[in-house]
């Protein structure tokens, strides 16, 4: 077949409907149009529904008087009363969520690591118990566990008058009470000492770790940092003229007063979250340790390291790299799961928002706030995990 040059050119030029770049743009435009159409239809429905039900979309209700009491907690130190605004009530809820989440994360990590290591123990009994623990708590719903801890656990403890008592601490169905250090009236605030001590301890740790990495010296950085913390706290205590005193809980006619206390709801929620999350963390830790090549153990032992040294200097640093990402996920889950507090009446943020929404009729707004705050919490935790991940990543030079 004879063809002229121009015809060949025509044939090889890709028509626009087969050009990948053009197709990509068209596909995206179609997709955007479809999404926009869906949103528009849903938005129209929403709009008519809101109008027929006379619902507003403004957030001005946040400034109104809440009119309900929040059972415990404060707006980051500022006490809350039912005359305060909705915004303040929600802040109290956020404070409670953060309180239970942070405490829960710390305790769940400790328990999870213990169980995870026990799961690898050569002691048959310890090993089996760790397995049973993990399987039982991982395979039952957290809600059932919470109901158990609250209604069948904390609430069945003895009454205040007959509270179980050991070493100045009380266990009763109105909560846990324990002795606590409190600020003496008219004394210099002890808070700055805490801040200075923590900063100094972290600085010491970082400095010693750097030195260890650079010079290969072998100080127990963690212990020295804890020592620094302790020394600064004790010397601060005496320098400021002993501003703290021990506050012992004591029974009164109305219950137990003084000391530090955990409400039954807080205690049940904390126990539930810690026990449940620890079973997942234990599996993560076990998998992380098992992921470290056996040759690493053998090589470390062969060059004369002790068992503890091997675990601490060779195995754990490598295991951590595997453990951290799923661990971050567990922290996220714990924070999100703290919203189950609603089931046992602990005023966490979601519970407060729900109450506020039901009472004011501004459900749409309160749910949006819940969405946003949980998203911010999630993003914060995952960005911390990512930061850590980047810092401990294998450095290939």
């Amino acid at each position: 077949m004879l063809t002229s040059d121009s015809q060949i050119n025509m044939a090889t030029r890709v028509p626009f409907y087969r050009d990948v770049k053009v197709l990509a743009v068209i596909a995206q435009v179609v997709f955007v149009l479809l999404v926009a159409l869906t949103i528009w239809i849903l938005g129209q429905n929403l709009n008519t529904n809101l109008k027929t039900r006379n619902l507003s979309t403004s957030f001005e209700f946040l400034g109104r008087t809440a009119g309900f009491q929040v059972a415990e907690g404060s707006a980051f130190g500022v006490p809350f009363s039912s005359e305060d605004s909705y915004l303040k009530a929600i802040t109290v809820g956020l404070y409670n969520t953060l309180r239970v989440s942070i405490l829960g994360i710390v305790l769940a990590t400790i328990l999870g690591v213990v169980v995870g290591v026990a799961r690898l123990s050569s002691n048959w009994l310890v090993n089996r118990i760790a397995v049973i623990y993990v399987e039982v708590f991982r395979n039952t719903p957290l809600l059932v566990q919470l109901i158990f801890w609250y209604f069948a656990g904390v609430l069945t403890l003895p009454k205040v008058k007959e509270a179980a008592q050991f070493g100045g601490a009380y266990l009763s169905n109105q909560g846990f009470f324990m002795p606590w250090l409190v600020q003496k009236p008219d004394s210099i605030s002890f808070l700055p000492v805490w801040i200075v001590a923590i900063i100094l301890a972290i600085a010491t740790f970082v400095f010693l770790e750097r030195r260890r990495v650079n010079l290969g010296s072998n100080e127990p950085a963690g212990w020295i940092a804890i020592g620094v913390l302790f020394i600064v706290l004790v010397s601060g205590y005496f320098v400021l003229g002993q501003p703290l005193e021990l506050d012992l809980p004591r029974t009164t006619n109305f219950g137990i007063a003084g000391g530090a206390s955990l409400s039954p709801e807080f205690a049940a929620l904390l126990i539930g979250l810690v026990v449940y999350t620890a079973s997942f963390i234990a599996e993560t830790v076990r998998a992380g340790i098992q992921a470290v090549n056996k040759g690493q153990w053998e090589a470390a032992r062969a060059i004369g390291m002790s068992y503890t040294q091997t675990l601490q200097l060779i195995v754990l640093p490598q295991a951590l790299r595997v453990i951290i990402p799923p661990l971050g996920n567990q922290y996220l889950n714990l924070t999100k799961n703290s919203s189950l507090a609603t089931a046992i009446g602990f005023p966490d943020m979601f519970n407060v928002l729900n109450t506020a929404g039901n009472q004011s009729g501004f459900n749409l707004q309160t749910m949006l706030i819940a969405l946003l705050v949980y998203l911010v919490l999630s993003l914060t935790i995952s960005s911390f995990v990512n930061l850590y991940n980047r810092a401990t990543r294998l450095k290939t030079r």
Partner: protein
Amino acid sequence: MVKTKTDPVRWLKENLFSTPGNAVLSIVVVLVVGLFFKSLLEWSFTKARWAVIPANFRLLMVGPYPLEELWRIWASLIAISLAAGFSWGTSTREQPLPRAPFVLLGAISLLALVWQFGNPSGTLVPVACAGLVAGVFIGRAIRTENRIHYFLWTALFFVCVILIGFDFGRGEVPSSLWGGLLLTVLLSVVSIVASFPLGVLLAIGRRSKLPVVSGFCIVFIEVVRGVPLIAVLFMAQLFVPFFFPPDFPQLDKVARAIIGMTLFSAAYMAENVRGGLQSVPSGQDEAARAIGLSATQTLFLIVLPQGLRAVIPTIVGQFIALFKDTSLVEIIGLTDLVGIGEAVRNNPDWLGVTREIPITLGVIYFIFTYSMSLAAKNLEQRLKTSN
């Protein structure tokens, strides 16, 4: 592997008393665990009022489902056991028939016969067990293609849903009467099934080279994954009606809960499926394109089948998590297993009965989730060896 018999003294020495530290640990653990079990047994044989469970057994299983319509559930159960037996039989056709499961089924049937003599469950449990066994033998006898399982189970899913809810001349059973374990199973199965196609689409969308599509999918997935399920459920209860035209028939609570759980589950499903798609080597993609398959053909004929196969155990894991998570519908006022449990606990007839119900619920959930996780492990092993 040669298994040698070790004498108990040596076993103890090796496993419990290998070092002084281990010996101390063993003794402490024995004491603590012994004390725990002693008080547990003491409580469960003297103080516990286990009568609460048989007295409310039907409630816990099916909730307020009408008695005269219970045949629907039994019919579904028998159909499911037949199909389960069939699938089991066909997949183990090459292996010798194991004896233990049949002994177990026989024991369950006998127990049901003796314990519930005269009651419908006393006769129907053995019938269901017999259906399972019959299914196994049918499955072993008939040559089938693997594909038949997908059709069978998809069909069965719709048959059961229709059977449980729809009108057969005597009126339908509205979802407000579904409850207990029935509702828990229905919620989780329907949500996971519905979230599967949505999750696959989201996963494909997230991998898309078109920034608008992938951006949309990423935002949806990450927002849903960043929010607790309970918030999603509340939002579904409150706002789903808002997004329908005002004259649209009102969706019931169960349907709204299913919508919420499906959207929630789809985001997690998308991440799991994405993991599976990423595990398919890029050579597969390139080879498919090289022999002239289009991008769509490559995706649906080459990448997806392999990716989804790799991700089956993970999806079982997700189903387990979802099965546990359905318990949250109690908070929005549905009568699932936990909801019924709470109702019984608050019943004045059973005042002071607090531990028995959560423990029983825990055991029921555990039986389901643990057996599913064993199945997932088994499946994973088989997928590994077959590759």
